[in-house]
Structure formats: C-alpha cells, structure tokens
C-alpha cells in the first residue's frame, strides 16, 4: 500500500510540477504587485474587413464581431457600446491581451487596438484559469487546473500517510502537524469571526 501511495504522490506531482510553480509565482504577484511585473502594455493597431450581421442585442453583435475577427476572450458589457447609428465599440478581454474594437456604422470593417500584456501578467492570469471563451486550446488548461487542484489535495493527505508510516519521523512529524495545524486553524477562525 505504502509503495503505491508513494508512487502516485511522486508521479502525480511530477505531472503537476509546472502548475505548482505557476501557483506559487502568481500568488506572490497577487500579494506583491511589483511594477516590473505589470509593465505598460504594448499597443498594436490593425484593421480588418467584416460583415456585421443583425443581432438581437449589443452583446450578441459584439460576440459575432469577435468571432469573425478570430479573437478569443470575453466581451466586457460595461465597456461595450452600440450607438443608434449602428456604430459599435467593443471591449474584449482575455489573459495576455485586451482589445478595443471600433466598428463604423456601415459595419464593413473593424479597427482593432490590441494591448499586449507581458509574461508575468500571463502567469498571474493562468492562476486557476478554467478556459478562455472561444478557445478550444484553452479547454485543456481548464482540465489541467482541475487535475492539479485535486492532486495537490491528494498529495497533502498522502504526504501525511507517508510520514506517519515511518517510525523514525512519527513523533516529530505529528508534533509539527499538531502545533502548526492548531495555529493555522486559530488564524482562520479569527480572521473569519473577529478579523
């Protein structure tokens, strides 16, 4: 039994090793928003012909434009406007890039302002990411997030089992777990109830 638990503990975590590093780095960046990790985005502008199809509301129209342009991401409703003359301004966001898309009233072209984020922002945005709208490739990352989250929980309990089944470390291990666990529980209760 111990042999198999150790085997899964090791090999499961080898599969999740990169996500552990991403979790660690991204969490540090949440706690410390360093200026070097959030540089100004690089702005690129381009234009593309489109065919604006009739749509029941601004969100459906915006999503249709994004699909025609081959862009993935979420339309931001509070920054997306549809004017009475048919002109549109669409804000689209996804990890790594943000877009502002202007469609003139004739609906035949789209002017796109693309803001490209840096690598640290992408790493931060990968934290717990469960896919990106209109991207089949990112469905894989959603599953990887799920697998790694579940596996870390397994690794925590299997780690306890692995040390507890070794006589040499039992006392020191349980003492560490007991003291640290009680301290952590007290902190969690305090911040929830009285913090």
């Amino acid at each position, binding site marked *: 039994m111990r042999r198999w638990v150790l085997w899964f503990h*090791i*090999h499961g*975590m*080898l*599969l*999740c*090793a*990169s*996500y*552990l*590093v*991403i*979790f*660690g*780095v991204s*969490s*540090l960046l949440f*706690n*410390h928003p360093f200026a070097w990790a959030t540089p100004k985005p690089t702005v690129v502008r381009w234009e593309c012909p489109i065919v604006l199809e009739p749509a029941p509301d601004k969100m459906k129209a915006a999503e249709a434009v994004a699909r025609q*342009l*081959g*862009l993935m991401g979420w339309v931001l409703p509070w920054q997306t406007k549809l004017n009475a003359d048919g002109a549109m301004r669409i804000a689209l966001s996804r*990890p*790594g890039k943000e877009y502002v898309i202007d469609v003139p009233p004739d609906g035949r072209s789209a002017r796109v302002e693309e803001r*490209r*984020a840096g*690598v640290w922002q*992408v*790493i931060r945005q*990968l934290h*717990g990411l*469960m896919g990106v709208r209109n*991207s089949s*490739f*990112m469905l*894989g990352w959603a599953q*990887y997030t*799920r697998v790694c*989250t*579940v596996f*870390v*929980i397994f690794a*925590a309990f299997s*780690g*306890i089992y692995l*040390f507890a089944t070794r006589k040499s*470390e039992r006392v020191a291990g349980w003492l*560490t*777990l007991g003291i*640290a*666990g009680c301290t*952590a529980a007290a*902190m*969690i209760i*305090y*911040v*929830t*109830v*009285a*913090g």
Partner: protein
Amino acid sequence: MYTIVRKIHLYSGLSLLLFVLLYFVSGLVMTHETLFPRQQPSSTVVEYPLEYQGTWTAQELGAFLATRFDLHGRMQDARELKDGGWSFVYASAGQENKLRISPGHDKVTITHTPQNTVGVLHRLHRLHRYGGPWFYSLWAFVYDLTSLSMILFAVTGIYLWYKLTARRLLGWILLSTSFGYALTTVLYLLYAP
C-alpha cells in the same frame, strides 16, 4: 543532501498543510460555481445619527467609523461622493459592512452582510496584501510562505524523485509534459490572436 532536502520537503509541508488545503479546497469551490453556487446572503440595514468633529478625510473618518460602530475587517473603497456624502466598505472574510454617510453628514446607513460558507471560502482565498490591522499583515506573511512553499515542493520533489527512483523514464515524460504544456500555454496566450 538527500536527507536535508527530504526534511525540508516534509516539514515545510506539515507546517503549512492546513493553509495549502484551505487554498486548494477554496480554489476548487471557486472554480466550480455550478456545484457550489454563491447565494446572495441577506443583509440588514440600520440608520444611525452621526456626530463627528474630526477632519473629513478618508483615513480619519474611516478610523472613527470603525471604532464607533465596532467594524470588523479592513477598510476598502473609501470615497467622497458627488452629492457630498461618503461611502466606505469594511470587509473581512466573514462579513461586509457598507457605510453611506448622508450629504448633510448627520446620518450614516450601515448595510451589514454576513457571509455564508461559500462566501467565506471565496474571501479567505482572495485575502492578500499587507496593510490594515496587524492581523492582516500576519495573514499576508503566511500567504507568502504558502506561495513560496508551492515552488519549494516542486523543486524539492523533483530532486527527491531523481534520487529515489532508479527507473526515471516515466518521470521524465511526466515532467517534460508538465513544463512543456505550461510553456506552450504561456506562449499561446502571448502570441495567439
């Protein structure tokens, strides 16, 4: 060297186990909202008379309100409104208090919203940054340790696997897949249209 690395892996894991479980269980709850829906908790709204003689700055007024009404948590989003009133939010993991001072500065309306279990887990997961009451800086420090431990577990774990295992082919395949996939995803998000 192996023994030292193993002890680091073991004791850092045991020391931070509960926090690691907190973040990963709450993370699971946050990424599966269909299984763990966030129901809007019920709020109570109470109006109080306000007598304040101090300086009308966010910092001083906020500190007065926290003491006067025994508000828990950290002050967030303090601002003067266009109509001359003020708005404050005091939030902790277990509750949120929104304060609205009237334009005449003579009344304050407090909307108190206690969080349910799912709400508490969301807030505990997102609780970061130093500052505010001392306990929040302590929490942020432990948050930093937990974040660093993720990297430590990966690095020490890879070392231990390499030293412990004679047949490493499967391990190399899994490790290459993990880092290769993560790198591909980062590059995809940076350069894909």
